[in-house]
């Protein structure tokens, strides 16, 4: 189960890499992305153990590239993924994956109301925001997200969790997907942010 999840992420990353390499040589017009502080950055993540459940609070900065913003303005929904992996530290082998969680959000511009709709694809709840800034702030401010039941963890073992936030290129419309793979400014992703899970 855990192996499968790990394999899946590798497959996705590997596929993205292959696509990038192969399509880089196709004669498609390149557009040089404006270099600015674009990207996703996880500022802080913390977990609290309350009544045998780990609750997660996170603070993530989303700075979308102009291309992404442009697409969003033009009604293209952008899907953001939060991947969280809990693993057990082992001295002599690689760490064992205990659980993988994925939260997916979709951000879309609603032209009629001039609102930004933030949809949680896991729970289908929708929030509307009057500006992109508040929408991204709401997206980046995760409060009291139930992460894990403590019963899944054994005592006297070291556990850690890591999180990554990224824009899901595969969820883009098909024509855009190709461009997203071969041009910069689309494959936005944060580094893995790792923290220990305290008992």
């Amino acid at each position, binding site marked *: 189960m855990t192996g499968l999840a790990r394999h899946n992420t590798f497959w996705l990353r590997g*596929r993205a890499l*292959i*696509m990038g390499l*192969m*399509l880089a040589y*196709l004669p*498609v*017009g390149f557009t040089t992305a404006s270099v600015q502080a674009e990207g996703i950055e996880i500022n802080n993540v913390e977990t609290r153990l309350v009544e045998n459940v780990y609750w997660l609070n996170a603070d993530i900065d989303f700075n979308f590239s102009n291309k992404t913003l*442009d*697409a969003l303005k*033009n*009604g*293209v929904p952008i899907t953001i993924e939060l991947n969280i992996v809990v693993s057990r530290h082992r001295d002599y082998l690689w760490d064992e994956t205990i659980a993988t969680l994925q939260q997916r959000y979709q951000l879309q*511009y*609603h*032209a*009629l*109301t001039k*609102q930004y*709709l933030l949809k949680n694809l896991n729970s*289908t*709840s*929708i*929030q*509307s*925001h*009057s*500006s992109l*800034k*508040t929408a991204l*702030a*709401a997206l980046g401010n995760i409060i009291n997200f139930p992460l894990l039941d403590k019963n899944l963890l054994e005592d006297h073992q070291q556990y850690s969790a890591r999180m990554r936030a990224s824009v899901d290129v*595969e969820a883009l*419309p*098909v*024509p*855009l*997907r*190709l*461009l997203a*793979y071969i041009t910069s400014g689309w494959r936005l992703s944060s580094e893995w942010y790792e923290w220990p899970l305290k008992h």
Partner: protein
Amino acid sequence: MAFKALTRITLGFWPVAALFVLLLISLYLMSAATQNSQQFGMLFSSLLVINLLGLAVLIILIGANLHRLWRQYRNHVPGSRLAVRLVIMFIILALTPVSVVYYFSLQFLQHGIDSWFDVRLEKTLEDALELSRTALDAKMREYRKQTESMAKELAETPSNQASFLLNDLRERSGAAELTLLSQDGRILASSTVNPTTNLPHRPDDNILFQLRQGLTYVGLDPIGESGLYIRVALQISHADPMTESRLLQALYPVAERMSNLADSVQAGYSQYQELSYLRKPVKISFTLTLSLVLLLSLLTAVWAAFYSARRLVAPIRVLAIGTRAVASGDYNRRLPLPPNNDELSFLVQSFNDMTRKLAQARDSARESQDKVEEHRTYLATLLGRLTSGVLSLNKTMELRTANSTAGHILGVDIEQVLGQSLDIICKERPYLQHFVDILQPHVEGMEQEWREQVVLFGAGGRQILMCRGALLPGGAGQEAEHVIVFDDVTTLIQAQRDAAWGEVARRLAHEIKNPLTPIQLSAERLRHKYLKVMDPKDAEVLDRSTHTIVQQVEALKEMVKAFSEYARPPQLQLRTLDLNQLINEVIDLYRADDKAVRITTRLDPSLPHIHADPGRLRQLLHNLIKNGIEAAGGANAVAHISITSGCVQQPGFKVAEIRVCDTGPGFPGEILANIFEPYVTTKPKGTGLGLAIVKKIVEEHGGVVWADNPREGGACIVICFPVDSDLTEGHTHALANHHTAEAGGKQ
């Protein structure tokens, strides 16, 4: 093994056909994904990768084919040039229409996609959106007023009663939700139409900030799945400034019909906007798909070009290889028939038939050649085993065939002279000239059958050959040949002659010698008894008669003794000797006591030693000198005898020659030919065996002797002895051994 499998995959038809079909399906799915993102959208990236990999495989296959063809072309493999031409032709045939179609498809694609988008349509949609907003604006203003009045009511109500009032107000106003919030956004009280479903919808920070500034927020919110709502939020202003101000938010549902219409407009506008934005990526995607399809078709066509060229050329290549094999003499190669039953197959079949027939013809030719060879070997063996020499000559005296015995008898290496004319052979070997002289008239005269006896004097000494010739009838187109069979009958004739004379001598000894002694004794007794008693006159007669009888009996005894000697020669004691020294020794005897003889010698100091019996040679010289004295001497005349020795160099062998000449009358012409036969003599005295014994001794030594009357007068006896090559040059003993054996055989 793995390489073979790989070759089968790269060259086989079905694997590539399967790859082509798979790629086609994959491209179809990709095209569907490009057009309809719902169905295959998730697969797009995978399909793209699969297609690119498939195309890469095709390119590798083509590369392998190209490399193979290039290698064949460079190595001049039969059929490779034709294959190259076919491949180029096929590729051009495929490339031209595909390129044209590709160009126009691209044009259509660009213009087709651009034609979807229209400025008027865009404006219309924007207007529709604006219209929706305007339609909703009226409602929003109405709800604002309503909410403001509700806020006034709430401002006068204490906090603990507010929740009751909220319900009341909500029901009156027709709002879906009324929420009372504190300044920092905490929900104080709330009333909803359907309390079980949703939590109260809290305004976002942006709105809260706006409210805290004292502004009123009126906006249209799409809330969840439940459609559009009009959100009105404002600050409840209190009369008492000490009281903490609160916020009121009211959510009014938009009428369903209106909401649906607005949604529809929103969806249409949004989709159009998205499509418009995606115009360029869509073009790229379609172009990519089209290019992939084109590439697939083109690469498959190129591969098919290689495949078809190979298939077409294969029988031709096989034929070319077969032709080369036949040209180099290999008729056993059978070409594999091509699977198709077409003209090429017929050609290959005919070629196989041809080579089979050629092979049969060659085999039968070889068989008959073998038979001829076998026959020839058989004949050669037969001829080789014959003790007779066999020659065949054509009309121009050219040596056609000869067996080894012929070479052995004639002292010629047959292998060297085969095919040469006898005249040329004789130039190098003059001792054969006599042999040729005798053959020539018979051969040139096309005589049917003839017999001749030839005497040769060559390396092997004197040889008597018995030749029989016959004309071979020539076949069609072949010239007539003469076959000559000859035997070396020297030994045979010698033996016959020896036997004949031996018999004569034995008889003489037996018939004559026995009565001689009684005759002599009787005569002596008569003389002894009656000589004293008879009167002197009779006594003188008796004395003379008995004396004659005794003398003649003595002569007869001498003659019988000579005969015996002639019949039974002592065994030859051969040794190497110097002829000159021997001659001097013999002459010394005559010089010492005989003044009636003058012997002059002219001896060649370079005369080689010969193999001979010195006793027999002394006898020979005595006989000759005596013979000379008897011929030249008498009547007080002084006999002059000259003895000459010399070495005569013949081609291939040497001869020691001795000439003994006298100053006598010479041999009468009528007996010159038979001078060496017994009892042929010109002298009144003598046994008539002197020269016969000379000849016998000479022949025992393998030499020849002949008599001659020189022009300056007198008679001359010439003797030639063969000189062994090993005595002069240290060569083999073969000839000497041969002579020894021959000499032994004659005794």
